[in-house]
């Protein structure tokens, strides 16, 4: 089993959805796709590289066709920095109502507080990856953000020093350092 690769951890949570939950998810996911405010805290926290939710109403069967599930299932996958309970804990503390909106319609969800039952529920419904790989294992999500921002400033520096006299390079370099000091 391998749920981690360098700084990154994989989590796969698979859990049944309660009655009327499917309609709730349809609305929630529609809003989240169109209103950036809903996912803004996840972007600000910057420790999720990628994640996604899938609602399954049927699955492949033994005949090569598909069988309808007695109730829909929510399949959540995430690639993030840290361990699963810390990950869920951080979101529970910072965005409790969004977490409730995301998980309340699932079966057995005990609320995000107190944390003990919530941790237990998370671990109970998490499936380990049999194989996991990431392209840049030594980088956290924040590292990727810093690198992309510095890359943009390097383009500015490149243009500034192209054909510039050697004595002015130090000036451009100092300006570059001032602009990127928080990211270097």
């Amino acid at each position, binding site marked *: 089993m391998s749920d981690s690769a360098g700084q990154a951890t994989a989590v796969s949570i698979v859990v049944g959805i309660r009655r009327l939950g499917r309609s709730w998810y349809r609305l929630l996911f529609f809003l989240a796709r169109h209103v950036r405010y809903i996912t803004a805290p996840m972007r600000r926290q910057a420790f999720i590289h990628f994640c*996604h939710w*899938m609602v399954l109403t049927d*699955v492949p069967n033994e005949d090569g066709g598909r069988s309808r*599930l007695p109730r829909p299932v929510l399949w959540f996958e995430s690639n993030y920095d840290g361990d699963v309970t810390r990950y869920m804990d951080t979101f529970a503390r910072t965005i409790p109502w969004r977490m409730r909106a995301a998980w309340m319609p699932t079966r057995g969800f005990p609320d995000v507080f107190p944390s003990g039952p919530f941790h237990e529920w998370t671990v109970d419904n998490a499936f380990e990856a049999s*194989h996991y*790989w990431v392209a840049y294992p030594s980088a956290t*999500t924040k*590292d990727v953000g810093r690198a992309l921002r510095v*890359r943009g400033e390097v383009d500015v520096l490149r243009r500034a020093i192209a054909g510039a006299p050697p004595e002015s390079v130090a000036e451009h*370099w100092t300006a570059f350092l001032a602009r990127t000091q928080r990211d270097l």
Partner: protein
Amino acid sequence: MNCIQLSILTAVLDGHRDALRTVLAGLPTEHASPFARVAGTHNGRWVVLDTAASPDAPRRVGGVPRPMLMCSAVIDRSADDWLANLLEELGGDADRIWGHCVGWPVGANRVSFLLEHRVQPSLAFATWNAPVDEVREALALHARMSALAVRSRAMTAAQLHAALDKALAP
């Protein structure tokens, strides 16, 4: 192209769950992982959804009747191209993995089979939506510029010019 979430869900044949797990556990990891050889891959995983209840690991996945195999990846190119490339890189391992799944075709049409088993995400999120090569280049450039920022304090203008030429070289 924006990153896309690709998820392929297939049903595991009766009695094949443990053998499938053994195959997946035996795949080379890190730089030798099959995903490492497929261009445009941010990350990839195989997960066996084990629905069998056991005293030490009860599973309560609502109504899923049998074990399932999920192959998922975040990629920056079309699913067709990426899957064709994955199958090419996997070689015989593709049959050793999905041969434990219902309906896996021998020989042709394997990309079509996988695409037919694709599950679309209801919601996908990315903090940074950049192609994988761009992220890798940015990380390497960041390391060079950080190192230069430290060294540059003791450099003359000419040395800095030369060092920048080197650090900014593609």
